[in-house]
C-alpha cells in the first residue's frame, strides 16, 4: 500500500518515549509493591516488564522497519479482513459481558494492571502501522483515545468498590461508604484537594496544548465536500445510527429520547437501595440498562464512527488504508417488498392514479400493514404483556404511568440493536416505508 520508511522515522521518537513511559510506570508500580506492600514477587514481575519495555523503547528508537516493534503484516491483514460492523459490535458486547460476569476476577489490582499493560502495548504495536497512526493521531481524535483509557480506568475503580461493597452487604456488614461517614472540616481537607486538582488539570492542559497543535484545515469551501464528512466526535454515535435509521429518527427523535430518558431516570428508578455507595448487586437492572446504553449504544458507536468509518461511511479495518474507491454491495430490502413480493408473490398494493385521496391513503396503509402491525404490537402490545410476565413486580411497584414510560423507553432504546440485527441478518432496510410523507422507519 504505502512505503512506511519515512513514517517509521517520524513515529520512532514518539514510540521510544511511549515505551519508556510504560517502563517508568511499571518501575514505579514495582517500587510501591516492594517498599509499601512487601509483595516482592509481583515487584519482580513488573520490574521484568519494565525491562522489556525499555528494550522495546530502544528498538523503537532505531526507526528502522526491521526493528520497530509492530504487529506482523499477516496479523494486521487478518484483523482487517475479519473486522466489520457485525463482529465489532457483537465482539464488544461479548467482551463487556465477560468483564461484567467475571468482575470479581478482573477488578483485582494485579489483573487490571496486566490488562492496562496489554492495552498500552497493543496500542504501541498498532501505532507502528501508518494507516492506524494516521487516524488515531488526528488531533481531534486524540481525546477519544484518552476517553477509552479514562473509561476503562474509572469503570475498574467503580467496579472494584462495588464488588467490595456487595461482598460486605452479603455478609451483613455496612458498606465502606457508611463506615467512613464521620465528618471532617472542609478547610483544609476539601479545599486543598480542590487546589491540587486545579493545579494538576492546568498542568495537564498546558502540556497537552504545547505538544498537540489544534487542527486547522484548509479555509472553508462550501463546494468542496470532504469524504468522509463527519460531525464532531461526540456526535459520531448518532451519525453511525444513520446507517440503520433515517435522519428524522437517528438525528432528531432518538437523541431527544435519550435526553428525555435520562431526565426521567430518577423518577422511574423506585429502588431505594444503592443510594450513596457503589453497588451492582442491589441495582442490577438499573446498572445493566445504563451500562448497555452508555457503553454499547454510545461509546462503542462513537469509536466505530471515528476510527473505523472511512470514505462513503464504509467500514475499514483498524490497519486498512482509507481508499475512497472501496465498493460495498448494498442490497437492502424494505419489509413491504419482503412481505408482498417475496413472500406472497404479489405486486405491492398500488392505487390507480385517479383514485381519491382516501383510497390512496388506504392503499398506502394496506401496503405498510405488515410494518405498522409489527410496530403497533411492539409498542402497544408488548408493554402490557411484559407487565403481567417479566416485569410483574415492577408494574406493581411503579403504577401504570411510570411503568408505561419505563417500558416504552426501554423498547424505543432497543429499536437500535434490533434494527442492527435485522439489517445484518436479513438486509432489512425499512420496516415502514412511506416516502409519500417522508416517513421511513
Amino acid at each position, binding site marked *: 500500500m504505502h512505503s512506511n520508511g519515512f513514517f517509521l522515522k517520524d513515529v520512532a521518537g514518539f514510540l521510544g518515549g511511549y515505551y519508556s513511559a510504560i517502563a517508568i510506570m511499571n518501575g514505579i508500580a514495582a517500587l510501591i509493591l516492594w517498599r509499601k506492600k512487601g509483595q516482592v514477587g509481583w515487584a519482580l514481575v513488573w520490574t521484568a516488564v519494565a525491562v522489556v519495555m525499555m528494550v522495546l523503547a530502544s528498538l523503537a528508537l532505531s526507526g528502522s522497519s526491521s526493528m520497530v516493534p509492530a504487529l506482523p503484516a499477516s496479523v494486521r491483514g487478518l484483523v482487517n479482513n475479519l473486522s466489520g460492523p457485525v463482529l465489532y459490535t457483537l465482539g464488544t458486547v461479548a467482551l463487556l459481558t465477560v468483564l461484567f460476569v467475571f468482575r470479581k476476577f478482573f477488578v483485582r489490582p494485579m489483573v487490571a494492571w496486566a490488562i492496562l499493560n496489554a492495552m498500552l502495548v497493543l496500542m504501541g504495536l498498532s501505532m507502528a502501522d501508518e494507516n492506524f497512526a494516521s487516524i488515531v493521531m488526528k488531533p481531534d481524535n486524540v*481525546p477519544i483515545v*484518552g476517553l477509552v483509557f479514562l*473509561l476503562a480506568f*474509572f469503570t475498574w*475503580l*467503580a467496579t472494584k*468498590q462495588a464488588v467490595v461493597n456487595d461482598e460486605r452487604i452479603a455478609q451483613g456488614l455496612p458498606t465502606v461508604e457508611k463506615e*467512613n*461517614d464521620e*465528618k*471532617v*472540616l*472542609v478547610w*483544609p481537607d*476539601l*479545599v486543598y484537594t480542590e487546589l491540587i*486538582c486545579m493545579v494538576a*488539570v*492546568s498542568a495537564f*492542559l498546558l502540556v*497537552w*496544548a504545547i505538544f*498537540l*497543535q*489544534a*487542527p*486547522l*484545515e484548509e*479555509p*472553508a*469551501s*462550501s463546494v468542496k*465536500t470532504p469524504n468522509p*464528512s*463527519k*460531525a*464532531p466526535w*461526540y456526535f459520531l454515535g*448518532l451519525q453511525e445510527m444513520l446507517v440503520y435509521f433515517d*435522519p*428524522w429518527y437517528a*438525528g*432528531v*427523535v432518538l437523541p431527544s429520547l435519550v*435526553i428525555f430518558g*435520562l*431526565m426521567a431516570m*430518577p423518577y422511574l*428508578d423506585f*429502588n*431505594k437501595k*444503592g*443510594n*450513596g*455507595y457503589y453497588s451492582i448487586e442491589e441495582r442490577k437492572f438499573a*446498572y445493566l440498562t445504563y451500562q448497555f446504553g452508555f457503553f454499547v449504544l454510545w461509546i462503542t458507536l462513537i469509536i466505530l464512527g471515528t476510527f473505523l468509518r472511512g470514505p462513503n461511511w464504509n467500514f475499514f479495518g483498524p490497519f486498512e488504508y482509507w481508499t475512497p474507491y472501496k465498493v460495498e454491495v448494498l442490497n437492502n430490502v424494505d419489509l413491504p417488498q419482503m412481505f408482498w413480493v417475496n413472500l406472497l408473490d404479489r405486486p405491492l398494493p398500488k392505487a390507480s392514479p385517479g383514485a381519491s385521496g382516501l383510497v390512496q391513503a388506504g392503499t398506502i396503509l394496506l401496503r405498510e400493514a405488515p410494518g405498522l402491525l409489527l410496530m403497533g404490537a411492539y409498542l402497544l402490545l408488548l408493554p402490557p404483556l411484559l407487565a403481567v410476565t417479566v416485569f410483574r413486580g415492577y408494574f406493581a411497584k411503579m403504577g401504570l404511568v411510570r411503568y408505561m414510560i419505563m417500558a416504552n423507553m426501554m423498547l424505543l432504546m432497543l429499536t437500535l440493536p434490533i434494527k442492527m440485527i435485522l439489517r445484518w441478518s436479513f438486509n432489512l432496510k425499512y420496516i415502514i416505508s412511506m416516502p409519500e*410523507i*417522508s*416517513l*421511513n422507519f
Partner: protein
Amino acid sequence: MAIGETIRNSQIWKSIFRHPMPLDRRNRIVVMLTNFFLHLHPVSIKKQGIALSFTWCMGGVTFFLFLVETVTGVLLMFYYRPTLEWAYNDILALRDVTSLGILRELHRWGAHAMVITTWLHMYRVFLTGSYKPPREFNWVVGVILLLLTLLLSFTGYLLPWDQLAIWAITVGSNMARATPFLGYEGPGQQLLTVGGIDMITDASDARFGLLGARFVGEETLNRFYVLHCIAIPLAVALLLAIHFWRVRKDGGISGPL
C-alpha cells in the same frame, strides 16, 4: 514573620478578608462562612464525600474547565473576528504568528476535556445512585447542563471556519431538516399546508432556524458566535448556580438525606 504579621493586621488586609488566618479549628470554620468563594461549601463534610476514589473529582474538574474556557474564550474574543473575511485568517494567525496563540489550543483541548469530564461525572453520579431522592431534580438540571455542554462545543466547532468546521456543522445541522413536521425533509411536513402552500420549506424549517440560512454561511457564523460566547454560557452559568445550590440543599453530593 513580623512582616506577615504586620500585613495581616493592617486595615487593608482586614477589610478584604473578614476573618483571621484559618490556622485553628474555630477559624477554619469561620473562613468557610465569611469568604464569598468558600461559602459555596459546607463547613464540614462526610469523609466519604471528599474521597477521590469515590467522587473522582469530575464535577469539580468540569466546573474548573468551564472557568478555563471562559477565561481563554474571553481573551480569544479580543482577537478573533467572526466574519467570513477574517475568521479563518485570525485563527491562522493565532497558530502561526500571534504571541499567546496557545490560548486557542488551551481553549480547544479544554473543550474536548470538558465533554469527557461531564460524561465521567454523570457516570459516577449514576454508579453511586446519587440521582435518587432527594436529588432527582438536580440530576435533571445536570442532564440539561450536559446538553448545553455539547451545544457549547458544537457551536464553537464552527468558529475556525475551516473545512473541518463547516462540514462538521453541515453534517450535524442537516439532521434538523429531518425534524418531524418542522423540517422540510421530515416526516409529516407535507401535511402542514395552507391552501395548497407549503408552510415548511427550506427557508422556514428547523434547520433554517438553526443556521439562519439555507446553508452554513455568514449568518450561521454570526449566530453560532453569539450562541457560543453569550447565550449558552449565560444559561450554563445560571444552571450551574442552581446545580451547586441544590447539592448543598439536598444534603451533599450523595447518600440519603
